[in-house]
């Protein structure tokens, strides 16, 4: 069984926000008005944040950024608190979000220490013309509604490591009677990354790029002390 993981090399990241935009169009995240964004209601499953410089830091002249998808924790605080199992950890380690079941209590959003979860304050809307060009992919069945499927108002959504791409890759592999090849399934942000700073693969496979990179001395995880054991791994700058 695969254990999907992403590695982000902060040395190579140029903070172009290509990942945010690719994610937006891949996953149909709604666009909010500037007033709503001012309130902090913008939706970007993969956000790029400027880091606050430490006081007295000599290197503070240099701007630093952090790009942040879902951590897909092995011990996810969001899954623990969901009252209806609308969010759950799948067999392959991906933290799913089922829009068809979510009751919108926002317990997961306050429990997640990484702030990766977004709530649909209003029904989603797109600018004129843009709604003609939404990604038609959706993951459905068994009472589930996941991935880029349009979310109704009042439910929580988050990065799924582009789970619809996994479904497609698996369907193709099954049709051809083989295993998924390495590199056959990558999320949109990894595919688009300008600086080639993102890597994606299976942590169970010792030869995969993510397994190799996760052994590097620069490798770290966000809020390691919180014990959430993220599968999104960063490589330190420098």
């Amino acid at each position, binding site marked *: 069984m695969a254990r999907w993981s992403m590695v982000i090399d902060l040395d190579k990241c140029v903070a172009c926000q290509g990942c945010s935009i690719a994610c937006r169009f891949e996953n149909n995240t709604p666009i909010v008005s500037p007033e709503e964004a001012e309130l902090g209601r913008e939706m970007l499953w993969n956000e790029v944040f400027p880091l606050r410089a430490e006081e007295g830091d000599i290197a503070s002249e240099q701007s630093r950024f952090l790009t942040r998808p879902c951590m897909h924790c092995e011990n996810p605080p969001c899954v623990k*608190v*969901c009252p*209806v199992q609308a969010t759950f950890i799948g067999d392959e380690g991906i933290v799913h979000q089922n829009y068809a079941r979510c009751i*919108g209590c926002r*317990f997961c959003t306050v*429990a997640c220490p990484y702030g990766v979860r977004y709530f649909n*304050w209003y029904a989603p809307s797109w600018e004129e013309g843009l709604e003609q060009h939404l990604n038609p992919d959706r993951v459905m069945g068994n009472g589930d509604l996941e991935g880029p499927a349009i979310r109704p108002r009042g439910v929580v959504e988050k990065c799924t490591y582009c789970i619809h791409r996994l479904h497609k890759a698996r369907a193709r592999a099954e049709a051809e009677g083989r295993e998924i090849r390495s590199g056959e399934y990558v999320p949109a942000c990894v595919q688009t990354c300008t600086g080639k700073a993102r890597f994606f693969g299976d942590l169970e496979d010792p030869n995969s790029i993510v397994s190799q990179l996760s052994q590097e001395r620069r490798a770290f995880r966000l809020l390691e002390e919180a014990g959430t054991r993220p599968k999104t791994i960063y490589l330190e700058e420098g």
Partner: protein
Amino acid sequence: MATWHPKNEHEQIILAPVKQGVGRDRILWIVLASILLAGIAAWARQFVLGLGVTGMNRPVYWGVYITNFVFFIGLAHSGTFISAILRVTGADFRKPLTRAAEAITLFSLPFGVACIVIDMGRPDRVLNMIRYGRFQSPLLWDFTAVSLYLLSSIVFFYLSLIPDIALCRDRLTDVPPWKHRMYEILALGWTGDSHQYHRLERVLDAMAILMTMIVITVHTVVSWVFGMTIQPGWHTALIGPFFLLGAIFSGTAAVVIVLAILRKLYHLEDALPIGLFNSLRKLLITFTLGWLYMMIAEFLTTYYGSLPEEMEVFWQKFTGDFYLIFWGMTILVFFIPLFIFIFRAKDSIPWMVTAGVLINIGMWMERYVVIIPTETRPRLLYELVQGSYRPTWTEWLITAALFSGMGLLYAIFTRLFPIIPLWETVDSLEHEPEPERPEPRRFGERTAQV
């Protein structure tokens, strides 16, 4: 056999408000009902448009609604504290207060539950809590504990009401027919013989123990919704006991307010002597000091540990965006009430009410200041995004509606049933010698076969 009722010297004055009927109350009812309706309309609008009409945002995902939830459940603790915990400990001064306090429980709980539904993004999917409920989630603990609390409160309240309903049935013969019919049905054929009183006391004693356990569970579980996350300021073992103490504190203060209003409006001065207020004063002094103890225990621990993410929240409260609410709350809940209780409130109902009102406003602010500052500085995001929160008119209107709804139910109740328990405040319930009862058999013991 004619129904026997114990002789209560205050019977006339206690029954007077029930006899009188609606009268001028109608204006109050209409005002409260219109605020309630306005709130329902605001909620309907919120349901149609989405929770965007509130001031909630990222990362402040929970706001005034959850504050109200915690506050209402806290208010509810007054009744159970006075009627159950004081029953178990045998504090007899509680007797005239029990019903007035239990009624606060009964009428604030539904509005506490309503807060959760109002706060949900998809209230239409509320049944998913039952269909797909996960007992690992603290929210389901809440759901279960609060429903159990509501159900058992209704039973407990109703049982102790039965003898008085029977009294209303027999004494109030000139009320409208529907009202009399209601008393007849609800009295369940109560005849008032000693067996019945004996049995009722036994059931109430047993239920009081159950209720004591439930009340402690409920507010602890409410706090665990916050405590079970790893967010700074919430993730502390103290949060359960602190919430419980706060609940009983604000609840008891609410009883003072309600009693003073009832005493004044319904001329119950003789049935509710000033000594009751002095007993409540002693309890409230204890709770005020207990509150200070909890505050010091919590904040001193945080300050000495000085973990960076904890300190972000700590300074938000002490000197940051929430300093006015934080220090205002400390003054309203602790300094002024303690001063009033010690130097002014003895034998003075106006001072007691002043302190009660301040404590309740302060405790609402306390709930707010426990919930919101943590959200504005979550673990990772405090470095990245700093939250702020300003409630909108929708949230204030719905809050006002919740309080009005509670007041409305309470006001109507006082016109239908005696708000002071008549049968519990008499000197003696004995009208004939206690009947012989068979010795209770021990578990597993067999009777001798002859």
